[in-house]
């Protein structure tokens, strides 16, 4: 809704003080980095061309150095720029997706379940990386996820939506401290219980190992 891929049926979304529906959508979207589960790399463009597409639409040419820099930023080899998307793994592709979203130096980064289709290890590594970039580049990032652990670990502020309604708006610290109401706490309970069970199992294993 922020980048008007979906039109709001009610209410307003303000971007830098302006109603998004009043802005030219193509122009708005070039100011907003967008990463989503489907990744959507253009299969007929090289990795480099994919990364450079946003600036190209605004009639700017991204230098090969800048493309290499962006690839390095998402921890990919700079020489990958000449490869085609179908030669990459899923994790590599999403890294390219992130680099593409960052190429236009956006004011806002929207991540719509960005790591949903990735294996847990890649997912974890990428999550950390995005958080790091967020700090380093001073971004505003909105991330949508179903995974409360991911939200708690990566975010500064967590908003919980249920049936189209905002039901909680808390910091991770606040949520872990029991704030945010029933629905939010239900979501927090899942990773917490998982963590407790794991800790429990580990404790038992350690105990068994000490047994003669």
């Amino acid at each position, binding site marked *: 809704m922020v980048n008007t891929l979906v039109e709001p049926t009610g209410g307003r979304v303000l971007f830098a003080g302006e109603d998004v529906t009043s802005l030219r959508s*193509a122009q708005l979207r070039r100011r907003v980095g967008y990463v989503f589960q489907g990744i*959507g790399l253009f299969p007929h463009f090289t990795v480099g061309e994919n990364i450079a597409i*946003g600036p190209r639409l605004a009639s700017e040419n991204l230098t090969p150095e800048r493309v290499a820099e962006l690839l390095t930023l998402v921890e990919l080899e700079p020489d990958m720029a000449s490869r085609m998307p179908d030669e990459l793994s899923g994790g590599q592709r999403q890294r390219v997706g992130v680099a593409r979203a960052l190429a236009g130096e956006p004011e806002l980064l929207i991540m719509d379940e960005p790591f949903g289709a990735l294996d847990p290890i890649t997912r974890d590594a990428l999550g950390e990386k995005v958080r790091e970039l967020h700090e380093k580049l001073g971004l505003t990032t909105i991330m949508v996820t179903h995974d409360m652990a991911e939200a708690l670990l990566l975010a500064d502020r967590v908003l919980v939506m249920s049936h189209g309604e905002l039901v909680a708006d808390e910091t991770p610290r606040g949520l872990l401290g029991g704030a945010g109401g029933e629905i939010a706490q239900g979501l927090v309970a899942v990773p917490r219980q998982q963590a407790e069970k794991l800790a429990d199992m580990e404790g038992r294993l350690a105990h068994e190992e000490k047994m003669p």
Partner: protein
Amino acid sequence: MSEIFEILLGLGDKFAAHIVLAASAIGLGIIVALPLAVWASRSATVSRIALGFASLVQTIPALALLALFFPILLSLRAVFGEDLPTLGFLPAFLALALYALLPILRNAVTAQANLDPGVLEAADGVGMTSWQKLTLVEAPLSAPFIMAGIRTASVWTIGAATLSTTIGQPSLGDPIFAGLQTQNWALVLAGCIASAGLALVVDALLGVIENGFAKRSRLQWGAGVAAVALGLGGALYYQSGGDDEDTIVIASKQFSEQYILAQLIGSQLEKAGFNVEYRDGLGSAVVHSAVANSSIDISVDYTGTIWTNELDRTDNPGREEMYQTIVEWERENTGVRVLGRLGFENAYAFAMREDRAAELGVSSLEDLVPYGPQLAVGGDPEFFERPEWIAVRDAYGLRFGETRNFSPTFMYNALRSGEADVISAYTSDGRIAADRLVVLEDPREALPSYDAMIMMSPRIAENEEIARALEPLIGAISVEAMREANFAVDREGEGKLSPKEAAEELADKIGL
């Protein structure tokens, strides 16, 4: 084999015309189909209507679709004026373009529908305008599929273009139709080989382009496009060289007599120093319109045909008056000049085996009346519905015991084997002489006359040089001479002649 090769070498102009026609039709098909496909991808209703219409067109047989454009264009003359051609290139071009529409449209729509939704979302997400999305993402990703559609359309169109012969557009169908009619299989094969070969070559070239798109190899599809452009350019160049104002176009309908007479007229004109071009195998219904609007220059038509089809008359004023009326009518209404009658008739007539006629003592329709109820009559499938039959029946009170329909060839066989006692023959048919049939006289002139006459288009009507060159043919061809020439072309096996050879023999016989 060498005969086919020789014919193939002589097909250059048909080949060029065929290529230009098919390419223009496919081009128009593409120009219409692609924007329509884009529109269809944005609206389900448009998609349904466009695909439904294209499929509907595809269900119309190509031959009928081509023929339908004649009345359509004729009625459009009210809007575009009398200069709008109703025969030849324009209707063939439009009909074939309609035919090419479906495969291109369907493939383009399917390709768009099957694009990865993630890629489309990304295109919006990175801020593409809908034009950028179309040109940068949708078009290149759909290109291989669209190209496959264009390939299918091309093969269809090249094949169907052979049928445009029937509406007066030269194509590789000319040798096929002429060959089928005169049972000259070398001609048929040569036409088929040429058009099939063309289709295969084009298919292969477009395949190279399609493959180049799929592999995103600019070099490969570029080379393919260049090869196609080169072939098309060659055809256009070839065609532009051959066409000039002085060429006299001679038409023929789809039967042997017409092919022979066209050749005979052509050789007379060539002797007089004219360039001649033949437009063979035109549909019978279109010949008169074609000569009237000068898309052909000379045709041979028959008084009875013009009388019924053009003057809309059903009465029979007698042979002489009918002819004079037609000459007058053409001069006043169409500007066509009727140069004169060749001397023979190709009319409906009743024929019997010589022995059977002698046995009954019958030499005219009048003599036949008392025996009618004991006899079986055979006719071509339409004959017993035609005004000619009704006129005879009413004039003589003629009733037959049995009425049977045969295709023309089998009609003669039926007479030979005794399955029919009397048949409705065509008076100039070669088989009358070959089977030694007796043509029954018609003392009450119930059967309208079908005098063969030379028609000249308004374009050349005033050309006395042409008139002088053709003057020796007027009144020169007896029905016996025409029968013999027809039979030489229609017969099987030894002594079979091509229309050209038969025309030469006929020319010798009448002393030209």
